[in-house]
């Protein structure tokens, strides 16, 4: 009884906090100072059409580096706690499923790669495309019980992408304005695939890293959960 009262008390306190936010909310009429700088000068400085991607990759690049680090830590902790139980016998997988999944897999993977590489032109970017590529691999390992993707390829790809991401940032420190500055490579013509400096390169590296990390996590979870 006391516990229920305590819960209701906490929930009422949180609700009053949000009620104050909702009631006192007036629609803003103009962008803030940082946002207006990103929008108005973003095209001139970086030549990227998608403003959110240029904010994520260059203007707030350190946050993205921290996020990639957190994902790496997550994959490591998962690998540490989930032991490989591949000595258990696995059930047979039907041939129809495996063949169909191998036919569909390239299309999903190509969609993910497209989303990654066009991150600076259309909605997309590294994280979205990486998640789609991991979903393509998930289709393969769920349809065929015995396959594991290729764990060494994922580990190598993840490490190499991470190293090159940091090296690109350091190159920005040496050549251009600061760490992870995207003007390391040329700006190019607006709207082309190879434009916006180093943003497509960084997006591709992030996409590969996130895709291989999520794939490793999914393979480990599936191997540990074999009944």
């Amino acid at each position, binding site marked *: 009884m006391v516990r229920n009262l305590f819960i209701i008390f906490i929930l009422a306190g949180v609700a009053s906090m949000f009620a104050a936010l909702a009631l006192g909310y007036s629609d803003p009429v103009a962008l803030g100072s940082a946002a207006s700088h990103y929008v108005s000068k973003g095209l001139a400085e970086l030549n990227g059409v998608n403003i959110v991607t240029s904010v994520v990759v260059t203007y707030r690049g350190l946050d993205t580096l921290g996020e990639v680090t957190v994902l790496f830590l997550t994959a490591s902790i998962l690998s540490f706690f989930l032991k490989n139980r591949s000595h258990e016998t696995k059930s047979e997988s039907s041939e129809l499923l495996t063949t169909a999944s191998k036919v569909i897999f390239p299309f999903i993977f190509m969609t993910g790669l497209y989303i990654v590489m066009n991150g600076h032109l259309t909605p997309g970017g590294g994280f979205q495309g990486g998640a789609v590529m991991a979903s393509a691999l998930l289709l393969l390992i769920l349809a065929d019980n015995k396959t594991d993707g290729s764990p060494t390829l994922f580990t190598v790809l993840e490490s190499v992408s991470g190293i090159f991401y940091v090296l690109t940032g350091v190159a920005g420190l040496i050549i251009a304005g600061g760490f992870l500055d995207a003007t390391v490579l040329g700006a190019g013509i607006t709207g082309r695939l190879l434009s916006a400096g180093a943003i497509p390169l960084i997006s591709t590296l992030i996409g590969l890293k996130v895709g291989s990390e999520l794939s490793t*996590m999914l393979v480990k979870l599936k191997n540990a959960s074999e009944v």
Partner: protein
Amino acid sequence: MAVTGIITGSLLILIGFYAILSKNNLMKMVIGFSLADTGVHIIIVALGYLKGRTAPILDNALLAANPETLVVDPVPQALVLTAIVIGFGITAIMLVFVWRLYEKYGTLEISRIGEAK
């Protein structure tokens, strides 16, 4: 229109907190955490919405005019992008810990786990 998002996000946070605080099952707690996380993201994106404007992708029509008066705030979207991915990672780690607890104690209910110690 942004107020609708704020109210939805607040209700999601309340529902998630209720699941974490009062439920006996560990999986329900993890589901509640994921719901509260989604609520926070909805509130942040709703706060960045400006009336009558469009998405922050500069196409030809926006490039001709002054894009600063025609585009929604891109900074909360960048922050929520990061937050969604990190929330997924944290929930995956929580699920692995729930599984290890189940392996050790054989039950998912915290009352029985508390008694067994």
